[in-house]
Each structure stands twice: as structure tokens, then as C-alpha cells.
């Protein structure tokens, strides 16, 4: 009978360990291998080089030539530096540091580490770094270094030119002495989710919610706080009731039942500020799939069509109590209106020319019992380019025209989608070239989907 034959490991064996080198660039890239620079799509691939004439210390620095907005090779600069080979063990360090200066004082949109175009598990980013024309040392604290025992993503950055959107002018910045360091002066962690806010959200079974606003903040030796955005994998998430909502390692909350559950998180043993309280009611199914051909549609909100620009789905008008949030069921998006008295949607940039359209379609869903009627108002702002409203009645004045469509309470069935098709008739029959506003009036909490004009 053969019992498992295990030979013990010899005393002379040296286990392979990952490099714990901290330096990434001093006068030359350190330990990155040969193929380590990977630009982002749409960026100028040649933005990065080694500059032998400019350096903070030693003989060379890394040079980044941020392009103009109209550069044919790419309208921004951005890339990752990924080790061409095995990753490093960075667990003994507490920050990525570097010296930087710029040809012009400006803001560097994103700089960080941990992106490898693979799992990107521990991406850490410092947003809106203020660059000056003089060498300054910058510190990107590591949210929890104990996680970084095998990391290939040494640096990531993204930079646009300076000036108005679409006409940015390029500039140059340099980075030198890029290295992971154990400063010993970084302390007092204050992690957060949802930007540190305690959020209460109504939701439905079947809905997924991405947790956002994940950050880590440390107090530096300078006495100033530094906040970085931290990937979900740094956090351990939990739910107070996994039969109502559960949360994945990636920070995606899945609502699986009815009731109440609160999602919280811990980073590096410290409870994160902020929480998400889910109040879930009922199951949700998708609205009926739109059937109109896209060529016959001007869509404001639907996953079935390309949507035209909408300024907002809630104007938060004075006197309005209505709140609006985004709900996602798989890939399907809804707008969720709660505490309704009235609410306005505006689409002014540009206004919608519905001259050739005949109907406005929308789908609504509520699990309330409607008591009052539900009204939908459609407003044309006329050629003066402005929505003109009587402040007392809410009605149209000047060159505006409007129709009001009423859905009676008895037509609204709790727990079922209601499809509404409103003829663009009456006062807007011959003036619908500048539609700019839709207003809902009522007393129900409702989901909105598939809001579009059609022929």
C-alpha cells in the first residue's frame, strides 16, 4: 500500500521572491524591461520620452509632451508603465513619490499606479495635480500596501492641454526620481465610500448599483491631507442583510430582495466613512421594447436608440419636492422619480425640432397606488429661444405653446408598465419646431423609460 510519498523541501532551497525595488525612474527606467510603455487609445503615443537635458537630480528625467487638441496623432497624453516581466513586492512601501515641473503652471488630470491592463486590481489615482514651473516633490500614498505583493503597474497618467474644451494648447512636463518609498511620515487613514456620504436609495430587486466615490485619505508629514481614489479591491465590503442586497469584491451592489440593507466598507482595518442604505421594494422587469424604427425617432431617453442631448431630467424647480436617481437593471437604464409633485425635463441645447414627429412616447412604472391624475406637459419655446412661463400658473407665455396630457389614476396599475403615446396636437400641432421641456405632475413614485418622439 503506497502512502503519499512526500519529500521534504531541502534546507538549501531559496524560494523565488518578487523584487522589492522601489525605484522606477532615476536617470533611466529601472527594472521595467524593454516593452513597458502602453498609451491609452486616442492619446498621442509618442508623448513620453527620456530627456537628457532636463533633470531634477542626475542626468535625465522623463519628459511628457502633452499635445494640442488638434494634434492628428492624439488630442491628449496618457499611458501606463507596466513591468515587462514579473511584478514587484511593494508591501514595505507607503507611497509613490516623484519630483515634477512643467513648462507652464497647470493641472495634471490624473497620475497614479496600479493599472496593468489586466485586472487593474489596485489602481490608485491622484486627481488634478497642481504642476508648477519649479521642481516640486509629489507624494501618492498607497491606500493599503499590504495588498501590493505582486504589482506590475508602476505608473499611470492622463493629461490634456490647457484651455477651453476642444481647443486645448499643449505643454510639457517632466518627472524625475520616480520611486516607491517608505516615508514613515504618512498616517491617520480616512477611507471613504460614496464620498463619505450616508446615502439612502430606493431600489428594486434585480438592480445593480456601482459604488462610487471610493477614496483613501492620509495625513502627510507636511501636515496636509492627501486623498487618492482607490480601486474597489482595496476595500472589504459588507451588507447588513444579504437577502436584500449583497456586494461583490468589485464594489457592485446587487439588490436581491425586498427590504432594507446597509452597505459599508473597511480599508486596511479602518471603517470607511459613508454608507449606502438600500430600500428595496418589489421586483423590476424591463419596460416593453420600443418598436419604432430608429429613422422615425428622436429619442430623449432609451437604451434602444441613440439619445439627443438632454440638459437635465430634473430642474429642481422652486417648490418642487421631486428627487431623481438613476436605476440600472442589467444593461437597462431607468430614471426614478420620487416624492413627486412636479418636475421638469429640459432639452435646450439644442431644442428638439419635432416638426416631422407626431407623438411623444413614454413608459412609466410605479408600485404606488395612484390617487391623483398624472399629467404630462409638452412645451415648445418658440423662436425667441427661451422657455417663457407664467410664474403663477406655470403656463406658457410670450411665444411658447404647450399641451397637457392627462392619465387618470384609474389607468395606472401598480406593479405594471404603462405605455403612453401622446399625439403632438392641439396648441403645438403647428408649433413643435422648438420643443424644449416636458413636465410631469402627480403624486406617484415612478420609473421612466423610453421617452422619445416618433412619426
Amino acid at each position: 500500500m503506497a502512502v503519499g510519498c512526500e519529500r521534504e523541501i531541502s534546507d538549501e532551497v531559496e524560494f523565488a521572491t518578487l523584487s522589492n525595488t522601489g525605484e522606477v525612474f532615476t536617470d533611466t527606467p529601472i527594472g521595467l524591461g524593454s516593452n513597458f510603455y502602453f498609451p491609452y487609445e486616442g492619446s498621442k503615443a509618442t508623448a513620453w520620452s527620456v530627456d537628457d537635458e532636463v533633470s531634477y537630480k542626475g542626468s535625465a528625467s522623463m519628459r511628457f509632451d502633452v499635445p494640442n487638441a488638434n494634434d492628428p496623432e492624439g488630442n491628449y497624453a496618457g499611458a501606463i508603465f507596466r513591468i515587462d516581466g514579473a511584478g514587484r513586492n511593494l508591501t514595505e512601501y507607503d507611497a509613490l513619490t516623484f519630483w515634477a515641473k512643467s513648462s507652464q503652471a497647470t493641472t495634471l488630470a490624473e497620475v497614479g499606479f496600479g493599472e496593468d491592463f489586466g485586472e487593474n486590481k489596485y489602481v490608485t489615482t491622484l486627481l488634478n495635480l497642481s504642476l508648477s514651473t519649479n521642481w516640486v516633490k509629489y507624494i501618492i500614498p498607497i491606500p493599503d500596501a499590504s495588498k501590493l505583493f505582486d504589482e506590475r503597474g508602476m505608473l499611470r497618467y492622463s493629461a490634456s492641454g490647457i484651455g477651453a474644451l476642444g481647443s486645448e494648447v499643449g505643454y510639457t512636463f517632466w518627472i524625475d526620481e520616480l520611486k516607491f518609498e517608505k516615508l514613515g511620515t504618512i498616517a491617520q487613514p480616512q477611507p471613504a465610500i460614496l464620498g463619505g456620504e450616508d446615502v439612502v436609495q430606493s431600489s428594486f430587486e434585480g438592480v445593480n448599483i456601482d459604488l462610487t466615490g471610493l477614496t483613501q485619505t492620509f495625513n502627510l508629514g507636511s501636515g496636509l491631507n492627501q486623498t487618492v481614489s482607490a480601486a474597489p479591491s482595496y476595500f472589504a465590503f459588507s451588507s447588513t442583510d444579504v437577502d436584500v442586497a449583497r456586494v461583490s469584491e468589485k464594489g457592485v451592489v446587487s439588490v436581491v430582495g425586498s427590504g432594507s440593507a446597509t452597505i459599508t466598507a473597511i480599508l486596511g482595518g479602518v471603517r470607511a466613512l459613508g454608507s449606502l442604505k438600500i430600500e428595496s421594494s418589489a421586483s423590476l422587469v424591463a419596460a416593453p421594447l420600443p418598436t419604432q424604427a430608429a429613422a422615425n425617432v428622436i429619442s430623449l431617453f432609451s437604451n434602444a436608440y441613440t439619445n439627443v442631448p438632454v440638459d437635465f431630467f430634473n430642474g429642481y424647480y422652486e417648490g418642487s419636492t421631486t428627487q431623481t436617481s438613476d436605476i440600472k437593471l442589467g444593461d437597462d437604464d431607468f430614471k426614478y422619480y420620487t416624492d413627486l409633485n412636479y418636475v421638469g425635463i429640459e432639452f435646450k441645447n439644442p431644442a428638439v425640432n419635432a416638426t416631422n414627429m407626431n407623438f411623444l412616447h413614454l413608459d412609466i412604472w410605479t408600485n404606488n397606488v395612484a390617487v391623483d391624475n398624472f399629467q404630462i406637459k409638452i412645451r415648445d419655446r418658440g423662436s425667441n429661444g427661451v422657455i417663457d412661463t407664467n410664474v403663477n400658473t406655470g403656463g406658457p407665455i410670450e411665444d411658447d405653446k404647450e399641451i397637457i396630457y392627462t392619465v387618470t389614476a384609474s389607468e395606472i396599475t401598480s406593479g405594471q408598465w404603462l405605455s403612453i403615446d401622446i399625439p403632438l396636437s392641439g396648441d403645438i400641432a403647428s408649433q413643435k419646431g422648438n420643443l424644449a421641456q416636458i413636465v410631469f405632475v402627480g403624486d406617484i413614485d415612478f420609473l421612466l423609460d423610453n421617452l422619445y418622439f416618433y412619426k
Partner: protein
Amino acid sequence: MKNMNKYKIEIKTMAFKCFLLAVPFFIFSGCSTDETQTVATFTELVMQDEFETDGAPDSSIWGYDIGTGTNGWDNNELQYYTDRTENVTVQNGVLIISAKEESFKGSNYTSARIVTKGEQAYGRFEARIRLPYGQGIWPAFWLLGADCGPAVVWPQCGEIDIMEYRGQEPTTIHGSVHGNGFSGGEAITKSYSLENDRFDTGFHVFGIEWAPEYINYYVDDVLYNQITPADVPGEWVFDHPFKIIINLAVGGNFVGAPNSETVFPQTMLIDYIRVYKQ
């Protein structure tokens, strides 16, 4: 010249003799290869509080300064000092002084300031402390002339600051003396900074050795300053009994007000305080 030759011959003879006899002992003194300094030499313990008993600090040793003094204790400090447990208490072997943000008797912050009932001239005064942090946070461990009052006005009565600290500079502490002609912003002061560490993440030892002709300042195992009568542009008033004060102030001239980044409550933890004589 003649003497030189004779001397040389004698040396050779001496060397020869030495070689035959046992190698003489040489006693090394002065510079040793051990690089740590001896920072504290006064070893006769005369007072100590190890803060071993839970509850209010030992009332046979400590009293309290209460309230806001005059103009925020002459520094525009923002806190109201109390003797409440919320602001000062001993727990698990440490004295905890807590600065809290709360509305209290017209102030927006509360904290504590304890003073020894006893007094002593000269000696070694040492405490082991974990400091707080943040903009506008100002802890101190210091000595004040026991005669300070209407008769002998500050700074004539003298002040020795063993440790002062700005919460917005967590790697640096300051040691100072105040006297007539060198007080407030003109105090004689020296700073000490940690290189790869900070004062709010662990305990550090702060102390002075005060003798008639000098005051030595140390942090942990580093002697970082010595002040002598020659160093002060005025009378050397450090020749009479002083009391010990430990306090945690909020805001004031030395640190400025807290801001939105300052986290409250802030705590100062004192492991022990020990006083020695030379």
C-alpha cells in the same frame, strides 16, 4: 639636541622592557564606538505618575486650570478647559486629554489643562507622550514659574517649554525658554524633527535636564539643544521653583484655528511623567 638623543635611547629601552613585561592595560574613556548619546544623567527619582489607576488623575499631584483664562489664556486659544472625564481621564495605564468640538459655556471646543500642586527648582522632567494631529491642535508639556501671579508677572516668573507642537506639523516639536526680554515670539527656542516618523503615531519621550547653568532638551535618545545663561538676552530666571503643566489647546496664536480637515476629538496620551534630581 643632546637631550633628544638620550630621550630616544631611553624610549627604545622602555619599549624593550615593555615588550618583555606584560602589555600594560589602556583604559579607553571619552569617545566610545557606541553612537547613542547619554541624554539623561539625573537619576534620583523624586516624583512620578505612571497613570496606573483608572479615573480622575491623582488629586494629590494634580490640579486643573478651568475655563478660558484671559483672552484664551493670553494666546487667543479657543477651548474651554474643564475637569470633566470627557476631557481628562486615566484609562488603561495612560492619561487621556481630549480636545472636543462642542458648544460649552460660550466656547466651541473643550479640553483640559492639568497643573502640579507641587513645585521644584532644577531637575530632570520627563514624560512619554503620544501626540494628536491636525491644523489648530496645540499640545504642550511645560514648566511655569510657581510664583507667576499678580506679584511676579509673566514672563519674569519664567517659563520652560519642554515640548510644544503644532498639529499641522506632525514631525516637529519645539523646546523653549521665556523670560523678560525673550518671551512669546521672542522666546529662545529650538526645534527637533523626526526624519522618517511622526509624533502622532506612537509614544515618544520628551524631557529636560535643568541645572543652575544650563537646560538640556531631549527627545527619545537625542539631545537636541542646550540653553545656558549666555544664550538668553535677559535675566536667567530659571533659578526658583516651577510647576509642571500638561495641556491640549485648540487654536490660538501659535497654531491658528482648526479647519474643516481637523478631525475631532483629538487626544493626547501620556504614559508617564517622572521627575528626578541631580
